[in-house]
């Protein structure tokens, strides 16, 4: 059925009279491309704040973990899940959890999809992830999803805490997608752009946060990450 439908549809489209493809106008390069490193960091922080994210700065891994302790105390966190991406891996959160009395789950604790989903949907109060890129133009965090970075860690818990190494901040989306899709065969199967908390204005136009995803997004910008 499908094969025939395809041929029929494409044949009809191809039989239609051809018209010229209109030329593309030249547009000036986006202003964001002129931003230097410091401006990119400032603009990212500014845009994140406008979106309603809490933004913290840290010099290194140690300060990052200290910030996490402050956040966990302020929010009363006792159970969290952390991705195993390359940014989070530098923080040794298992150790941090032990000394702060916080249970830190990893995606591996969910042996299968069902066990994992039970943790992210029912157990934890926050999900901690690194980011693969951040985009200054709109305060966007970019996550590449794979076995170390499951999709639901940054989505199902009511709080998302994102660790952003400043050297991963890019000016515009294309600086990220041009790299990721340079070779289609190596492109990631799933990419997410996260810009602020989940929200809606569907009832009477009243804006509220935490519709289905996180209600709060806390971002820690890290100057130096351990290598």
């Amino acid at each position, binding site marked *: 059925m*499908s094969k025939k*439908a395809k041929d029929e549809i494409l044949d009809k489209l191809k039989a239609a009279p051809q018209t010229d493809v209109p030329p*593309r106008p030249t547009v000036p390069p986006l202003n964001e491309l002129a931003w230097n490193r410091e401006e990119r960091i400032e603009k990212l922080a500014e845009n994140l704040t406008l979106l309603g994210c809490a933004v913290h700065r840290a010099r290194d891994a140690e300060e990052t973990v200290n910030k996490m302790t402050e956040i966990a105390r302020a929010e009363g966190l006792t159970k969290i899940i952390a991705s195993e991406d390359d940014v989070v891996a530098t923080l040794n959160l298992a150790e941090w959890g032990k000394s702060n009395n916080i249970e830190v789950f990893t995606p591996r604790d969910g042996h299968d999809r069902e066990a994992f989903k*039970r943790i992210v949907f029912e157990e934890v109060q926050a999900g901690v992830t690194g980011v693969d890129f951040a985009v200054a133009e709109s305060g966007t965090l970019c996550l590449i999803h794979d076995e170390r970075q499951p999709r639901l860690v940054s989505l199902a818990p009511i709080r998302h805490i994102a660790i952003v190494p400043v050297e991963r901040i890019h000016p515009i989306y294309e600086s990220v997608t041009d790299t990721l899709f340079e070779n289609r065969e190596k492109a990631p199967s799933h990419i997410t*752009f996260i*810009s602020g908390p989940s929200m809606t204005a569907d009832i009477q136009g009243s804006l509220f946060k935490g519709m*289905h995803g996180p209600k709060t997004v806390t971002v820690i910008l890290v100057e130096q990450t351990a290598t």
Partner: protein
Amino acid sequence: MKVKSEQFREVAIEELKTRHTRSHLDVIGLFISEMRRASMGTFPDPSAALELGRAIRAESIERLPELLEEFERNATANGAVVHWARDADEANALILRIAQERNVRLVTKGKSMVTEETGLNDVLIENGLEVFETDLGEFIIQLLGRPPFHIQGPALNIPVQEICDLFMEKGIMNEPTLDPVELGHAARVFLRNKFHHVDMAITGVNFAVAQTGTIINVENEGNIRLTKSSPRTQVSVMTLEKVVPTMQDAMHMLRLLCRNCTGQKIASYVSMDSGPNKGREVDGPRELFIVILDNGRSSFYRDPEVREILRCIRCGVCMLECPVYGKIGGYPYGWAYSGPMGQVLNPLMLGLERTQDLYRACTFCGGCKTACPAGIDHPQKFLYYRAKDVEGDPRYKGKRRPWTESSFMGIFTWVTKRRWRWNLGIKAARPFLNRHVEQGFIRGMKGPVEGWFKSRDFPAMAEKTFHDRMQERGSRESGEPSRS
């Protein structure tokens, strides 16, 4: 979804009386327009950015067959399974089969206008599946059984009291509340359980990137991400015009879509699927099906005059700009698509005969066309449809005018083709028209022109025409008979 476009006039009259419809339309329009202006201002040259968007969409549609083949090739290479469907029934049957083969019981949906178009929910529910719309607005109108009020805010106009009663009745919450945040929270808790246990995801598609075989979804609530992340099977339905040539094009269109839709620089979540997960992940779909739906579009693609309406990216800016939509809201349009974008699309999908009022409910202010980031000339389409309808063009199911009107127009044309006939006609018509004069104005007439006078009047005809008077004056001043 039942099509009710024939009732445009009746529903519009009712909606004009509804205070809730009016107040929300007034406020939302102003608010988003301001946000839109600010966000478009981040482009170094906003009008050039708009022009680029229009060129990208024009190219996408002119190169449609080639781009669809490229998209299918790359999506398949990424591991997705691409199906094609000629019409709504074929698409619905296909999706039902995918669900039944996998013993799916619970389906969650991301908001998609295309499945509103095909009436997919009804088919799945009739066959014993549990289907939940998960966008808050769609969730509410699914429970109410109403069409969307607006393509982005389907339930914007529903009063909180009604939502409260609805949620109590359907067991979504136990304690009544009129706080929109509490109502939203009740929906979150209810749907969270569905996201946890869902067997199959159904979503729409905002952009399909030919170059990379990627589908892109744009949203604010997180319901599409949850829908796509939790179950093993994902079905994403796209109409064939969703394709864009390259990822760079998609990023530019993304900027324009968000700015024109809600005035945001970007929506909270943009998620991009290039195939299913790789098999080692603990979440995300193990299998990804992409359904490419035609549903009549390839037929009107033949006509270069109307092809451009396929450029639409569903941002909804035309509705915000439309003075008619701004007063009557989305219900009178009677289908999934409302406002100017619905007025250009619905007549082609449903036929000109059933949609008479849609292409006539226009002031020709051109607001939609001026704002459209996809480069659609809506008013010009309305004129085209009117002409096709008058001619009774069978391709578009035109109604053709009654013989009385066409013979009147025939005589009128004949009269206007010669000056002497026109002048004679004018002379004959004047006393006839002036019979209806009251206090210097013609306020109404019986017969076929009765409707015209409903909201208008006409000054009485002067005894002599301007030309007559000029002639008389000319002959008086020069003492010579003037040339006529």
